[in-house]
């Protein structure tokens, strides 16, 4: 009697341990990530989307237009503190390319550039996310599922480019004019640039590209006739922190 009771407790113990590990693993093996990917008629498609930023054409005014276009469209609140949200913003060359610059690089060091999520080929933010709220689409766009994100901010630690923002507050209280093209977010989730995936799916180019007066080029990296590839063929270009192996897909034409 005694010993069978003990056996039972032992079995139950092992079972509980196994139960805590196994269901997750079997699910993990079958599930290939969120299927959030609806294609509409006339959508723009690519095997790998990429952006090229023409630093010779960029000036303050154009950069501000790009930021404005993106942030209004996506309901990105303007919060005046270090708990702010940025999808696309301005950084001086020295901050973006401190590992690829040298002191004699004429006035480049202070020249302001635009920066945004690089939609990496091998994105650490996707790798570290415990819920797959961050995932990479087959066309290379790294997207966020705001409803799945638990707000652990592991992706922010994982991104080596500082491309992600966290909703420290409910963003809606900072928004006056709502854009109805894109949902607002709730507090406690991470967000970032999403290459306007929702616009591409409707056949439109990203908002910043449209606003950039030709300074931002966007297209399929694997199509040798695309604007991006043409520009990369003709101009010298840089990507941020290439040695990390993340494979950034935002190129800076110098």
């Amino acid at each position: 009697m005694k010993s069978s009771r003990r056996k039972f407790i032992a079995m139950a113990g092992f079972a509980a341990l196994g139960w805590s590990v196994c269901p997750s693993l079997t699910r993990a093996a079958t599930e290939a990530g969120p299927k959030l990917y609806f294609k509409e008629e006339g959508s723009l498609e690519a095997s790998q989307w990429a952006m090229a930023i023409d630093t010779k054409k960029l000036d303050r005014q154009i950069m501000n237009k790009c930021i404005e276009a993106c942030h209004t469209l996506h309901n990105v609140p303007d919060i005046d503190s270090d708990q702010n949200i940025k999808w696309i913003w301005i950084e001086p060359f020295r901050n973006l390319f401190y590992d690829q610059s040298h002191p004699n690089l004429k006035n480049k060091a202070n020249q302001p550039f635009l920066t945004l999520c690089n939609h990496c080929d091998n994105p650490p933010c996707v790798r570290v996310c415990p819920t797959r709220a961050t995932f990479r689409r087959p066309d290379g766009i790294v997207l966020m599922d705001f409803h799945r994100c638990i707000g652990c901010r592991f992706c922010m630690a994982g991104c080596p480019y500082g491309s992600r923002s966290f909703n420290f507050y409910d963003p809606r209280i900072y928004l006056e004019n709502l854009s109805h093209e894109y949902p607002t977010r709730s507090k406690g989730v991470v967000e970032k640039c999403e290459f306007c995936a929702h616009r591409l799916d409707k056949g439109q180019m990203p908002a910043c590209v449209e606003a950039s007066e030709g300074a931002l080029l966007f297209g399929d990296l694997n199509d040798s006739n695309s604007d991006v590839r043409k520009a990369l063929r003709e101009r010298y270009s840089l990507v941020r922190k290439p040695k990390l192996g993340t494979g950034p897909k935002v190129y800076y034409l110098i």
Partner: protein
Amino acid sequence: MLEKAIKGNILYWGWIFFLLAIIGVGAGAYLMQLEHGLGITGLNRDVSWGFYIAQFTFLVGVAASAVMMVIPKYLHNFKAFGRMLILGEFLAIAAVSMCLMFIIVDLGQPARLMNVILHPSPNSILFWDMIVLNGYLFLNLLIGWVTLQSERKQVAPPRWIMPFIYLSIPWAVSIHTVTAFLYAGLPGRDFWLTAVMAPSFLASAFAAGPALLILLGLIVKAFAKWDPGKESIQALAKIVVYAMSVHLFIVLCKVFTAAYSQIPDKLYHYKFLYFGLDGHTTLATFSWVAIFAGIVAVIILLNPKNRQAENVLAFSCILILMSTWIDKGLGLISAGFIPNPMKEVVIYTPTQPELLITLAIWAKGFLILTILYKVAIGVKKEIEV
């Protein structure tokens, strides 16, 4: 056995109500955080983890250290630990519970916690951390309870518990290793990107955990009038001093790598940690305190005479706890995020609500610990009369 927790003197109940009061205040602050979001903390876009995650990291170490008694006791048949082992296991339970609470208060969307299980991502170290932490909690609850129960009946622990005890040894190592891997594998975070992350975590854990245990042992001796035994305290003291020496040595190795290579990416973080950047030197002051406290404690404890004097021992254990807590609970996370990926310095300072919530979780941990210790010592005393 739990009934032992509800019989206590005025001191016991005073302590319990003191802890409950702190928990109450912290709960209020947490409700505020639930309502307004993590904006009430000092966290920001660049330093996205702070005090909560730092406490979690420190406490995983405390939890892992129970293994430093399990190994000698069960693998080397070191009997002296038999008396005290339960205190180590119950400390592990309290520590892991605090870890889990710190993770939960750090989430932006705690209501979605279950997403980690509903949409598991084995790529994520956080997923594995959750598994090993919960598993370790379960193991220690089971082992602690079963061994205590058989002690009460004055029979040998049942044989079926042995596999769990042996399993708990690698499992303890795993909780700390996996936690170290949360940091160690991130590209672009040069302060954390080192292979000695897990070993250094283990070394500081094997110093901090047993140091806390020695203090708890001495407290139990003074207040509950139950002596955990001189031999076990002395053995723990030896573990503390050697583990702390290894920890300091690894710190030196890390600093050397950064300083001698002079690679700016590595160096900036250490400059921030020990000298401050852009005039922000608060953390640097703490870091030096940690170094000196650690060195002084090791020098004191290396001498067996000092280890035997209980008040000197207690003082050194406090120094060690201070040193390792600053190392994990303040320095590790901040210096990892500062400077940020753009090489800008954005400072993080915990806010008052954040500190209150942190304090409340510590109080909850001590509440769990007090109740478990009350039961354990009640049982020990019962069989000894």
